[in-house]
């Protein structure tokens, strides 16, 4: 028993269009990444400044 033939006027394979990302989602993602990078940079900077500011004195502490 064979499958019924597909109607002739409908193409066998319709080209699939990839879903477009929501512009709102894209913009929010970009903002979040920028904010994360800013915060990470700030944290690293605070750490490095602390090392530089304390570096000269850190060995002078009493043991």
């Amino acid at each position, binding site marked *: 028993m064979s499958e019924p033939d597909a109607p002739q006027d409908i193409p066998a394979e319709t080209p699939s269009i990839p879903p477009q990302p929501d*512009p709102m989602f894209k*913009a929010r993602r970009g903002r979040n*990444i920028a904010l994360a990078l800013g915060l990470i940079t700030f944290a690293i900077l605070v750490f490095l400044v602390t090392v530089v500011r304390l570096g000269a004195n850190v060995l002078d502490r009493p043991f």
Partner: protein
Amino acid sequence: MATMTSAITVESDSPARWQDYLQLLKPRVMSLVVFTGATGLVCAQAPIHPLLGAVAILCIAVGAGASGALNMWYDADIDAKMRRTRGRPVPAGRIKGAEALSMGVILSLLSVMFMGVAVSWLAAGLLAFTIFFYAVVYTMWLKRWTAQNIVIGGLAGALPPVIGWAAAAGEVPLNAWLLCAIIFMWTPAHFWSLALYSSDDYEKAGVPMMPVVAGAASTRRQIFVYSLLFVPICLVPAFTGLGGLGYLAVAGAGGLVFLILAWRVMLSQAGDSADPRLDGRLYDVRAGARDARNLFAFSILYLTLIFATLLVEAVLGLPAFLNLIPGAV
């Protein structure tokens, strides 16, 4: 504050991208401030750890950006009426005024506190004063009130080299204030030459720029007078132990060109009548205003050149031309 601009509620379909928040910080102004601040920091010739020097410049940049955000929050109503500024994030509705205000306040506090804790409290105090002067004295008061707005307000743009110097040396001697004086005296000729060919824009927005209040002829004369005061001040660093022979040559030759261009502006018809063809093409000027555009463009080049020369001479350790005031550095 009847003109409180946070009331502007333009909504845009396009969501705010991170680039819009960056635009809020006026990156072009930031780059100029970074350049002049770095010149002050290097010219101080004081020992400072490179990382702390970089942090000082970053704090100056962020402080300038914060002032820009506060300016865009408060001036959104003016910005919306002017061709040059109507595409900014707040008047275009991409960012809410309250967001710009929050960002400006938070970045102001952050930049000042970080400068104080990491580098110098004198530099932090000067940075706080600069932000206050630009955001409150200039933006909220002078800009809408007097034709001398950019003359007095120019102090905010002139202070970054002083902040840089204070960050490096922990003090602000005469030469630091000389750098400040150069930018301060440069401001009127620079902004008024721009205003000469965009005065209709300022008039529409109700900003009392000099060409709107006193007329084009008076503005052209004042540009020349300020240029006469500005160019000699540019030569002074060569005689206070700051600039070398190269600086004297650049400041002298460039100053001569500056004066010639200012003279041509005074004789021109720049700003006499609005050109209807200008709509949407701010920097396209008709023949009569070409002299004003030339001075505007050259003023940027000249200031960049003299600060770059000072920077290069300080980095290379080239000797000063003459020091008539020992202890000025």
